[in-house]
């Protein structure tokens, strides 16, 4: 969804009246769009005003102990339920792996390039980790752990004579909409002639190319950006490419295998 499409739905979302089929798409967009998140938060506050006008009804006295016990139980859950923790760690390891492996790719890619880009890529990596964590919060770790869901990871390496790097994460699910998340960083932000960049995923089976999100017209100060694309079935789309304004491939990589999610961290 684009920002205007999301903004068109934010009022209904804040009122809890957005059709379910739109809710996930809106939430996914807001995972990376700070502007829409801010607008949504302001509308949420306005909508909550209605709740505060309700005449207060006193809950039964016994409810307090029940609630406190429930919160304490969940707060202790990571220590009390190792199986659950492994599940969460597995999801976290997927994301950590994406970032860590990307760092290797960037390190190689940056060799011989200007030092400032090395530093900027590191900073962008931190920003991206935060963005990915936010994304995970919105989608929920359960999406990564649900039986039948498959997660593919990959790194993007620069073409000859290029700098930068990136990572891609694809989730293929029988129960929710497939999505791919692509991050890029270290692309020279001052290279106006190279923008807009475009991110593509390519089917290994049919060769079909799908553009991921909108063209990247502006990079942040560190040359980083993130794009998300939904589609019906992404299982065959294993190749990821980033092209510059001339159509030349500047970054390329492949996602897979899914085995990475099956190996929980200790």
């Amino acid at each position, binding site marked *: 969804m684009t920002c205007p499409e999301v903004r068109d739905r934010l009022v*209904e979302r804040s009122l809890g009246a957005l059709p379910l089929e739109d809710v996930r798409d809106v939430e996914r967009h807001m995972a990376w769009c700070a502007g829409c998140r801010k607008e949504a938060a*302001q509308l949420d506050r306005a*909508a909550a005003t*209605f709740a505060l*006008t309700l005449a*207060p*009804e006193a809950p*039964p006295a016994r409810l307090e102990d029940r609630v406190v016990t429930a*919160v304490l139980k969940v707060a*202790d859950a990571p220590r009390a339920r190792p199986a659950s923790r492994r599940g969460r760690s597995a999801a976290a390891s997927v994301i950590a792996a994406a970032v860590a492996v990307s760092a290797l790719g960037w390190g190689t890619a940056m060799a011989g390039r200007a030092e400032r880009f090395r530093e900027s890529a590191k900073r962008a990596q931190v920003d991206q980790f935060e963005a990915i964590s936010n994304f995970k919060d919105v989608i929920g770790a359960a999406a990564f752990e649900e039986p039948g869901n498959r997660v593919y990871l990959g790194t993007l390496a620069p073409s000859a004579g290029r700098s930068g790097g990136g990572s891609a994460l694809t989730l293929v699910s029988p129960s929710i909409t497939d999505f791919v998340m692509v991050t890029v960083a270290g692309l020279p932000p001052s290279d106006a002639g190279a923008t807009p960049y475009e991110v593509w995923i390519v089917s290994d089976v049919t060769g079909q190319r799908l553009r991921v999100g909108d063209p990247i017209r502006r990079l942040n100060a560190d040359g980083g950006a993130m794009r998300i694309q939904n589609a019906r079935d992404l299982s065959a789309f294993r190749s990821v490419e980033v092209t510059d304004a001339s159509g030349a491939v500047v970054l390329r990589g492949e996602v897979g295998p899914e085995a990475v999610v099956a190996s929980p961290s200790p």
Partner: protein
Amino acid sequence: MDGLIAGNDDAIRALYARFSRPVYSMGMRLLGTREAAEELTQDVFVNAWRKAARFDASRGRLSTWLMTIAHNLAVDRLRRETGVTRPTLVLVDEVPDAPGIDEEDALLERDAAMRALSSLSDGERTLLARAYFRGLTAREIAESDGIPLGTVKTRLRAALIKVRRANEDKERP
């Protein structure tokens, strides 16, 4: 909030004492039974613990943050349980008051909320209430009233933005 994040018993009880009534009231209004309202109240505080680290006091009040969580959970439940009958529309003017049982802060907050809603016309207030308290989508309202979907969306947006501005005005020094 730090106490909540740390799983501090006293902090959880303090938060419960302050906000359990509006949350429970929300459950009663939207879900219609005491049992469902109790479950909602429990779920809200558990969710608040899970999301506590993301609460930013500079971006909004704790009460509105909690009520947003409560409303989202209640609407999710209504939609999940198709057998649950939506409660009768409750207009804020028709809500019976219960003097003497509330705490001062909550009363002040409720009073401020009522004043913010006073910026709306009766029609605007009813329109927003149909969406907020009954979970009617813009399309459902449009079909029910026989007016274009775009008109409903425009009216919902204009009304909610009025409330937002009223809230901003009252918080302005």
